[in-house]
Every structure is written in structure tokens, then in C-alpha cells.
């Protein structure tokens, strides 16, 4: 643990200590004029003794201390390297810790959000293993050995093998982690179209028929049914407030190229064979808005008439969840991650407490009844 200052420039406030010093010194420097007839026997000292003298040393000390504390407070005191170097052993949920031999001194935790100790109940929900491994790697001191106990089959992995800075012991025990239940939501389509987009709407209806999905068609004035998961909005002009609200509550909407939607950072989600983007998408609230970049017609979008169009439309409106299950031996973390950032503990709260105590002491010293009248 190393004490440090996060903003050393704040120490410039230490200069304020000069103020009480001057206040306690100034009265000494003035010379009282005095008549003195026997002056001829007074000899001027070549260097008049001018040892600085301070009044009320205790009060001066309290004031100086107060200002020094304030200066250090402004400089942002902190303690560096506050992590301990005790070994860490993390168990993926679903493993009985009693079955695994482990170092008694090691800190045993669940490989779950919060990294709770092993003596708390095991989490029974699916956890993003890959993400947690990376987080644990960055939160553990660089010198602490890290052991991860995982079942043979992992759920919650992502597409990238975690890269870690520690030398991780990847201990695989038989068993499987609690699997996340895939909840394929049935695609319930709704189509709202005005007369200008009637041609394009035919392609959408055809695709829905090809996917054997019911579709709730209507003009833009029709309300969107509650069960709808995807809305295809083929109408010019801005989206009505009701539709925007529906999107923000978790709906997915595909809007026509001439529909006015809120501006924002978008990313292309569908390209044609030449690499030209056909649809760009953007998150809005909990939902998603995808916007066609071309008019909905075979001239501008040849993909409309291709046999893969219905599947592409379904993929666009309800993307399949990424695969998360992996063999543990194939998901062993790779070396080469960024080393953990040094953790620091902010000490400003303690300094604020010390400042208030010093202030109270200073006030008590300055206002007590016994204090002598300043000369």
C-alpha cells in the first residue's frame, strides 16, 4: 500500500499556511516609539536581533494543521496497490466446492457477478463466463495466483477466448454449468403501410406468407397489437409518438427509406452482394429501429425477389442468439491480457473528517474565554 496524491498540484494550497504565520507574526515587527533620554548609553546593535516570535503557538499550530489538511485534501490523497496478494480460487456456478481440494488460505469466490464468497449460496442463473473471467483477471492483484474451477461444459461463453494477464490455472471438473434457457420468441409481425408504399408491402406480405407467419396489416392509423414483436412501417413522414413509445419499450421496427426517424449512430445490418448497405439499424430505448436505405422495390433492391429474402427478413427482425455453450478445454484463457490496473483507495473522506475535527479544535482555541487579548 503506497500513499500517493492523485492531483499533486493541489499542494500549491500549502502556500496558504503563510497567512496564519503572518497573522501571528505581524504584531511583533512594529516598533513602539518611546522617549528615552538616556539614549547615549544605548548602542545600536549592528544586526538588531530579529528572531521571529509567534503569538499563541497552539492556535497557530491548529490553524497551520487545518490549512495543511485542506491542501492535502485538494491534492486528492489515495492509497495505491490496495489489493492483497492472497491466492484467488473462483468456482463456476454449478460446482460443489467441497469436491475440489483447495488451498485453505486462498480466497474462494463464486465466478458470478459480484464475486461473492464461496460460503454464500451458489447463484442458480446463467452467468457470462468469458466476461467474468476477464473481469476477475483485471480485479485481482498481479501477484495473486488465480485458479478457476470450471465444469467440462461451459455456458455463457462468448466468441472470443478470454485473454488474461495472470497465469491462470484452468481446473476442469466433470459437470455442466447451469444453462441459460433459450427462449425463442415467435416472430409476430405487424405491417403498417400507406398507399404510396403498397407495392413494397406486397413483398413483405409475400415474405411473411413464405415464413408461414401471420401478419397484421393495416394503414398507419391502426394501433399496433400488444403481442407484436416486429413492426414493418412503410409510410413517409415521422413516426407517431405511440409507435416510438412502443419501440422504446422493446419493440423492433423496420421503417421505410422515406420515414423520418430520430438521428443517431447507426450501423449497417444487411448488405447486398456488392457490399452496398441495404438496412441500417440503431438502438432506441430498449428496442431497435432498422431503416431501409433503398425504396422497397426490385429495381432498387434486387434482393427482394431472391429466394433468401424471407429468411433474411426474419433474421433482420429477430436475430438468432449467439451460441454460448463451449467445451471448457477449448475455452482455456489465453495469455497476453492487459495487466490489472493498480487499484487505489480514495482517502478524501477521511481527510474531510480530519479537517472538520481540526476546524472544531481551531474554533475552540480561538474563542475560549481564557484566551489573552492580542497585543
Amino acid at each position, binding site marked *: 500500500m503506497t500513499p500517493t496524491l492523485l492531483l499533486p498540484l493541489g499542494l500549491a494550497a500549502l502556500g496558504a499556511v503563510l497567512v496564519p504565520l503572518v497573522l501571528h507574526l505581524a504584531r*511583533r*515587527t*512594529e*516598533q*513602539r*516609539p*518611546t*522617549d*528615552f*533620554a*538616556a*539614549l*547615549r*548609553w*544605548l*548602542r*545600536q*546593535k549592528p544586526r*538588531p*536581533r*530579529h528572531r521571529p516570535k509567534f503569538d499563541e503557538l497552539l492556535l497557530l499550530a491548529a490553524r497551520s494543521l487545518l490549512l495543511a489538511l485542506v491542501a492535502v485534501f485538494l491534492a486528492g490523497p489515495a492509497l495505491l496497490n490496495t489489493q492483497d496478494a492472497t491466492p484467488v480460487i473462483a468456482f463456476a456456478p454449478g460446482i460443489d466446492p467441497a469436491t475440489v481440494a483447495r488451498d485453505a488460505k486462498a480466497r474462494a469466490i463464486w465466478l458470478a457477478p459480484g464475486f461473492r464468497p464461496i460460503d454464500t449460496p451458489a447463484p442458480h442463473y446463467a452467468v457470462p463466463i468469458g466476461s467474468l473471467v476477464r473481469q476477475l483477471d483485471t480485479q485481482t492483484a498481479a501477484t495473486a495466483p488465480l485458479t478457476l474451477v470450471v465444469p467440462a461444459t461451459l455456458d455463457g461463453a462468448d466468441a472470443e477466448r478470454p485473454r488474461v494477464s495472470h497465469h491462470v490455472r484452468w481446473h476442469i471438473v466433470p459437470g455442466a454449468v447451469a444453462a441459460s434457457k433459450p427462449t425463442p420468441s415467435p416472430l409476430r409481425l405487424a405491417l403498417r403501410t400507406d398507399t404510396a408504399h403498397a407495392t413494397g408491402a406486397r413483398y413483405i406480405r409475400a415474405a411473411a406468407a413464405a415464413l408461414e407467419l401471420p401478419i397484421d396489416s393495416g394503414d398507419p392509423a391502426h394501433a399496433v397489437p400488444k403481442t407484436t414483436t416486429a413492426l414493418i412501417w412503410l409510410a413517409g413522414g415521422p413516426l407517431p409518438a405511440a409507435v416510438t413509445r412502443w419501440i422504446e419499450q422493446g419493440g423492433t421496427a423496420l421503417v421505410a427509406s422515406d420515414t423520418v426517424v430520430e438521428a443517431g449512430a447507426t450501423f449497417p445490418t444487411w448488405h447486398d452482394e456488392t457490399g452496398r448497405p441495404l438496412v441500417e439499424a440503431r438502438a432506441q430505448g430498449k428496442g431497435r429501429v432498422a431503416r431501409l436505405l433503398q425504396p422497397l422495390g426490385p429495381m432498387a433492391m434486387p434482393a427482394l425477389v431472391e429466394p433468401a429474402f424471407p429468411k433474411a427478413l426474419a433474421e433482420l427482425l429477430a436475430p438468432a442468439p449467439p451460441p454460448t455453450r463451449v467445451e471448457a478445454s477449448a475455452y482455456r484463457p489465453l495469455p497476453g491480457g492487459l495487466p490489472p490496473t493498480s487499484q487505489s483507495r480514495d482517502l478524501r473522506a477521511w481527510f474531510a473528517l480530519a479537517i472538520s475535527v481540526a476546524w472544531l479544535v481551531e474554533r475552540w482555541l480561538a474563542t475560549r474565554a481564557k484566551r489573552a487579548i492580542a497585543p
Partner: protein
Amino acid sequence: MPETLIPADVRHRLKGLSLIARRAVGDRGIGLHASHSRGTGLEFAQYRPYEFGDEPRQIDWKLYARSDRFFVREAERESPVALWILLDASASMAQADARRAGFSRLDAGKGLVAALAELALAQGDRFAFAALRDTGLALTRPASGTRHRDRLHLDLHGLAAAGAFPGEAGLAPLWERIGQRDLVVIVSDWFDPACLDLARRLSAAGREVLGIQILTIGERDFDYDGGYRFRDPETGEEVLGDGAALRAEYLGRFGAAQASLHAALDAAGVRHAELVLDQPLDTPLQRLLGRTGNRAGGE
């Protein structure tokens, strides 16, 4: 300045004191300074009815012719000794202590002058007063009587310390007036060498001189602490310094200066005594004029 020049307790203690000019003793005869040459004096004092035993030649015959009664013409009785009280009124006398700011060295000197005048009045000696300063001496002639004393008090009340000690030319009127056998008391701080010079020359010229030195508490103890700007009231010189730092050296040098002053006064035959402002006013009078003082001859 105090309302009364002489505090009551000091006035009470004055009764034990007597002015005796040692050089005049035995010279002319009767009384403390005894000769009063009745009838032969120069200053007319009064007529009084003839009494049996008066010399007939003292009768004023012209008055007898006018009034048909015998009257005797009396001259003012004159003591052969006059007391000259010289009070230094230079600016240095205005110094007072911070401890008792209203009581300056000059105030103490005025008290001493008044007390000496009381003594002279009580024993019938003539007394005269002169304030020594370079702007004029403020002389009074030697005389006796309560009116003269009151005039002296009036002079004292109007006196303020200013200027420097008078030079030789300024002191010339004194030489014209102080008689051969007169008693001279110089009340001063004795810091100015001219003062010592005056005493020395008066003494050498046959006058009996008594010296009273008035010191402030600060001069004796140098009880200054902290930063001060010391200023000489007469020359205007200034010394900056810390009281505690200057103290040891000042006390040493001042003590040496005092010792040499005392030696010079002793050598000149000047009896002297010292009054510090925290002492009773009659301290130097007791030393010089008290029973022991008169016998032992001062310090």
C-alpha cells in the same frame, strides 16, 4: 501633573529635615543661619511701635514729628544664606514611565522644588528658583515669605519641559545672582555634561551645591520587552531595537556612566542623591538633608 505639588505624606516627613549650609555655619552667629541684622538691612519692612529697650537711634524721628508717637523703623530680616533651586526643564525631563504615564520626571522635580521651598520657608531662609532651559531661565529673585512661595508655585504650574540644557551664555544670569555663600540645589537627570559642568564650577566658586538626580524606572531597570524605537527627546536621534537584546549592554554602560558621574560629583564636593520615579518624593531629601544626611554628607 498632580494637583498638589507635595503629597501629604511627604509634607509630613519634611518636618524632620533642615537646610544647613555647611560652609555658612559659624560665620555670623545666631540661629540656624543666624544673623539677622535688624535695623540695618537694606530692604524696608515695617514700622512698629517703640518698645522699651529699643535703641533710640532706631526711632524714626520724622514720623514722630508727624504722628507724635515713637515708631521704630525695621528692615526686612535677611538670612545670610539664600537657597537657589535650579530645576532642569530641558525636554529630557518630560520623560515618564509607561507604568505611570502621567507622572513625568519634571513633575517629580517640581515636587522636590516645592518641598525645598517649604523647608527654606519654614526656617526663614530666602529661596530662589530658576528653570534651566535654553529658551530662558525663568529666574526669581531670592526672597522669603509665603507670597514668594505662592509665586514659585505659580511658576511651577506653568512650567513645561522643552528644548535643551542651556549653554554657558544662557547660564550667565545665574552667576550674577547666586551669592558667595548660597546653597544651590540642582534637580536634573544629570545626563547632559553641561549640568555636571555647572555644578562643578559653582562648587569651585565657593557655593555649596547639592545634586538631585531623577531617573525613570525604565532608565534604571530597562524593563522594555519587544521592539522599540527609542528616541532622544533633545537630539531627536533614534535607536531601533529589541528591548531584551539591548538590556544587558545598556545596563552595563549606564551603570558605568552613573559611577563616573558620582565620582565626578564627589570629586567636585557636590553632595548628591538619586530619586527614581517609583520611590517616595522625599527620598533624596532624606539622604541629603536628614539628620544622618547632614552629618554624613550625603552619599
